[in-house]
């Protein structure tokens, strides 16, 4: 894994959204949606970001594309820090980085035909010579499993799954290297979801695409990913290859998250770790480890000191977790203080 080429490198990324208030509409506080996260995406892999609502996974995706201007940090794409680029230079890079959104109906123009939708990006990027664009659109339609005869239809004439295929085709139209899929299959019915997941995997093999796959569905993530990042309240709590994350997870939050998913395996004896309470507000996140307010293992150090992402004995290379007590929890030395 480590000798692979790094396509995207995110360093100390921060995304704070100001909260305006008071008499003069001054900034009174910030929502710390993403607070100092770093990770790398290797060429040709699928890296997933999972977490619950408000953990900052979508914000991370948007910040990487500069759809929201990040507060601080570095985003290196293919060796260039794209946060330093001006608008014109950035537009060149946009050709290589595309995004697929959750709701295909909200993200494609309902008044355009599929042909217009798919040519627009090629026009803007000047990616394909004009006379070849028509053929390219037909080719794209077939690539994503739609018929070339549907080319002049409007989005409303398609079903949800087909619309998501249009969204995928649009992302592919400029021949990108990296695709960020933000809950791309979450709104689809399960039988359609499987079709779209298979399509994404096929496209990755064919076009050597790199995916940053943002999702809350750990079943889908287990199927599609090579590596996985777990986020909680704007921080990365664990990053690991797929196998380690599902079978050798270290962070108490990862464990709780996995144990909370209802399983269809009736035989499996599960010990559910029920977390108390809700995710705290990202405006005023807890001091120290952000998970300590809900963590059954929390002690004094967790309340004061921010844990670093680190690797320890028994963890594979590249597997890191941010917990003060992970060794002691694993050995059984440190037992839950509050039994939920």
């Amino acid at each position, binding site marked *: 894994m480590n000798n692979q080429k790094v396509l995207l490198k995110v360093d100390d990324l921060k995304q704070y959204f100001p909260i305006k208030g008071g008499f003069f509409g001054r900034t009174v506080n910030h929502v710390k949606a993403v607070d100092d996260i770093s990770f790398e995406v290797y060429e040709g892999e699928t890296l997933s970001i999972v977490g619950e609502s408000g953990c900052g996974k979508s914000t991370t995706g948007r910040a990487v594309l500069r759809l929201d201007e990040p507060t601080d940090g570095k985003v290196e794409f293919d060796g260039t820090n794209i946060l330093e680029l001006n608008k014109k230079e950035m537009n060149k890079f946009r050709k290589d980085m595309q995004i697929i959104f959750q709701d295909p109906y909200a993200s494609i123009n309902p008044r355009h035909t599929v042909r217009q939708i798919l040519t627009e990006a090629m026009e803007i990027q000047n990616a394909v010579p004009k006379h070849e664009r028509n053929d390219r659109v037909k080719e794209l339609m077939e690539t994503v499993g739609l018929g070339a005869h549907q080319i002049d239809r409007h989005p409303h004439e398609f079903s949800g799954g087909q619309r998501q295929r249009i969204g995928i085709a649009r992302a592919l139209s400029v021949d990108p290297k990296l695709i960020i899929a933000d809950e791309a299959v979450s709104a689809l019915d399960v039988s359609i979801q499987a079709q779209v997941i*298979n399509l994404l995997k096929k496209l990755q093999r064919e076009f050597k695409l790199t995916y940053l796959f943002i999702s809350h569905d750990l079943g889908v993530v287990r199927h599609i990913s090579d590596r996985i990042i777990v986020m909680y309240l704007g921080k990365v709590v664990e990053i690991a290859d797929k196998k380690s994350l599902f079978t050798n997870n270290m962070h108490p939050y990862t464990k709780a998250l996995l144990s909370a998913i209802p399983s269809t395996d009736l035989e499996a004896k599960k010990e559910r770790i029920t977390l108390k309470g809700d995710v705290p507000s990202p405006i005023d996140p807890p001091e120290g480890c952000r998970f300590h307010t809900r963590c059954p293992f929390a002690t004094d150090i967790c309340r004061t000191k921010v844990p670093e992402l680190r690797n320890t004995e028994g963890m594979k290379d590249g597997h890191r977790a941010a917990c003060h007590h992970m060794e002691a929890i694993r050995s059984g030395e440190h037992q839950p203080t509050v039994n939920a």
Partner: protein
Amino acid sequence: MTGAPNPSYDNILEIKNLQTSFFTKDLEVKAVDGVSFNIPKGKVLGVVGESGSGKSITSLSILRLIEEPGKIKGGEILFKGENLLDKSEAQMRKIRGNEISMIFQEPMTSLNPTFTVGQQISESFRIHEGLGKKEAKKKSIEMLKLVGIPSPEKRINQYPFELSGGMRQRVMIAIALACNPDLLIADEPTTALDVTIQAQILDLMKELQEKLDMGILLITHDLGVVAETCDYVAVMYCGKVVEFTDKKTLFTEPKHPYTVGLMQSVPQHDQDVDGDLAVIRGSVPSPADMPQGCRFAPRCPFATDLCRNKLPDLETDEEGNQIRCWIYSDEWDGDPEVNVHEQSKSTS
């Protein structure tokens, strides 16, 4: 509570051949097309299906909440042995929220944003039990405590926007359970919630169900939720029940090709899948051109001419499990050795 002595009944709810349609200028959309199932007293029935399968319309029909241009065309809905379709609107109003309650997917849109939580819970006590203001408030606090909301005395004066999603759903459950219903209809109650919160709410529902001994009709698309909470499961497709079994049979020996396809197409967090996911090819047919035979035939890998031309009946076997599929009938004209668990893995 209705006054009249109830005839004895084993099932809290029995639906027989329910038909609910929506009418447009030149089209009748049969959203619920001859649905039948029972919920035994104190049991949880899960209704599973994809969008457009008619699961939500079935639940709205039970409460007679179908609005124009929709209409309940026929069938029977026996609640405690009495047909709800024969009740007057005034009688229905007494039943809703009192003997049958409902919770919805999105707690923010089903709570009134301009009233406090306390006012909204008290409302049911005051309407259905005729309690005074003070008494209703006291009982509301008790309900909030029951559903696990910390410091209920404070929460009772808060508005829905001041609560998190999980808290709001707890408030919805408190309102629904306020009058001790015999039947709770929960339409995707945890779909909008995060998994850790979903786990809390499911645990709470199970706990309260046992404590209060009520029947639950749980509508969901999540097979994991079914596996953890239900006793019986009805799988719906295009307005019809295609399979009805106890939970264990459903997960160990699903019979209908649609059920099998559903199970295989959902990637699980605790299992690896080699290669591509199994898919159900195509998509749900449009109501305007519903197949004349089995509704699932155009997507079914085993479909024969019989399936395409003639609609199978819902047959009951000796264990009480029901299946609507020609493969299990004497008339089956396809491969007699067919194994529904081996489906194709094509991507298109």
